[in-house]
């Protein structure tokens, strides 16, 4: 079920409550796709860097080869924000007298911890990775951070493109007025007071502002179109057959539905086997009760069970072994 879905889509998101095994399931799916001969990029948007822990090796913010056909990378919002702010402060340094450098840096440093900064940075990199990744890879698989965080990230392109759109409209209006003023000849009265007078450096500046805004809009729209395209993208919710993960799954599904993102599969991870002793049998019966709640709330969604294992999944061979069982 999961593998069929993975084969059919180009972009796959794995989300769900913390600790249910998103990283393992997404890595296993990615490995299975790579074994089928596809070029897969596996991306973690969780700042906890679980991919590195799973494969038992360091994976950075650049695509790292895991095995033939599978590259992985971990997006680090701290790193992205720092880089972005460094560019801004060096641009500001060029504009301002050197005695104000420390003031500028102070302002920019404060901005680093402003609310929304990390998610905006993450969104930007996701947009880049999706746009570039689709050129180099057949499939992009996202291992996302726990539910709430991800639901927010998925609606962000919508908010951001609306916002950028608003700014662009304002700019266009201002530019149109400036154009009228230019056509009506030399200005005398307002020259010193308007900020958009007709000299070349002003026009140059206007066009830079517009370019920045248009670049943003392109990025957000591109990402939004890809995510909303249900032929291309799908969201898989991973859960454990326990009360809280089940409730959170129902909630996440609702949030994603509101954001127009299609959820096509549920993966119930760490299922207790019924044939391995009295204790696990009892556990399995308990799980059926929780899964009945889940089926009641989301009756049409297909579910795939993955059974509990005696040993941890660590390192590539363990992931590969599990990938073989997926199909």
């Amino acid at each position, binding site marked *: 079920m999961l593998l069929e879905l993975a084969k059919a889509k180009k972009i796959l998101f794995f989300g769900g409550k913390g600790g249910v095994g998103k990283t393992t399931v997404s890595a296993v799916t990615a490995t299975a796709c790579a074994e089928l001969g596809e070029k897969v990029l596996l991306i973690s948007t969780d700042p906890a860097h679980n991919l590195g822990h799973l494969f038992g090796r360091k994976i950075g913010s650049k695509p790292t080869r895991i095995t033939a056909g599978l590259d992985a990378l971990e997006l680090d919002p701290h790193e992205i924000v720092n880089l*972005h702010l460094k560019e801004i402060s060096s641009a500001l340094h060029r*504009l301002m007298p050197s005695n*104000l450098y420390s003031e*500028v840096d102070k302002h920019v440093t404060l*901005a680093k911890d402003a609310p929304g900064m990390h998610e905006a940075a993450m969104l930007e990199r996701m947009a880049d990775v999706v746009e570039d990744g689709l050129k180099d890879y057949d499939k992009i698989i996202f291992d996302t951070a726990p539910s709430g965080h991800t639901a927010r990230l998925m609606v962000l392109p919508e908010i951001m493109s609306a916002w950028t759109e608003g700014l662009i409209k304002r700019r266009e209006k201002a530019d149109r007025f400036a154009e009228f003023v230019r056509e009506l*000849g030399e200005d005398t009265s*307002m020259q010193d007071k308007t900020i958009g007078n007709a000299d070349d450096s002003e026009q140059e500046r206007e066009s830079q502002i517009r370019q920045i805004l248009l670049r943003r809009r392109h990025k957000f729209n591109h990402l939004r179109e890809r995510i909303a395209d249900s032929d291309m993208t799908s969201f898989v919710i991973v859960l454990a057959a326990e009360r809280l993960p089940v409730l959170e799954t129902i909630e996440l599904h609702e949030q994603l539905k509101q954001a127009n993102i299609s959820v096509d599969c549920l993966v119930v991870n760490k299922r207790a086997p019924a044939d391995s002793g009295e204790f696990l049998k009892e556990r399995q019966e308990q799980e059926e009760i929780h899964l009945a709640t889940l089926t009641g709330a989301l009756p049409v969604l297909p579910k795939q069970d993955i059974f509990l294992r005696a040993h941890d999944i660590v390192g590539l061979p363990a992931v590969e072994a599990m990938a073989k069982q997926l199909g």
Partner: protein
Amino acid sequence: MTKKEKESLLKRIEKGLHEYYVAPYRRSFARAQRDEDDLFMLLVFAESMGVPNPAAYYTLELLPLVYDRFHEWHKRMGMERSPLDHIGCC
């Protein structure tokens, strides 16, 4: 008055009349443009003034481009001093 002088007088009158009719329009467009620019500045600096801005990360990128208009803008908006704690332009 020679022919040449006459022509230049006519030209001057024409220019004056043109200016007479066009100036008010130009002024109102210039004012409208300034208002738009001011609003744009407000959006870019919103976060610094306590108005939540969902895209602060992105507007920061515009800061270098609008910074040198900043002083004029905050004066015009009736703020005597720079509203940014850390960038004192005056």
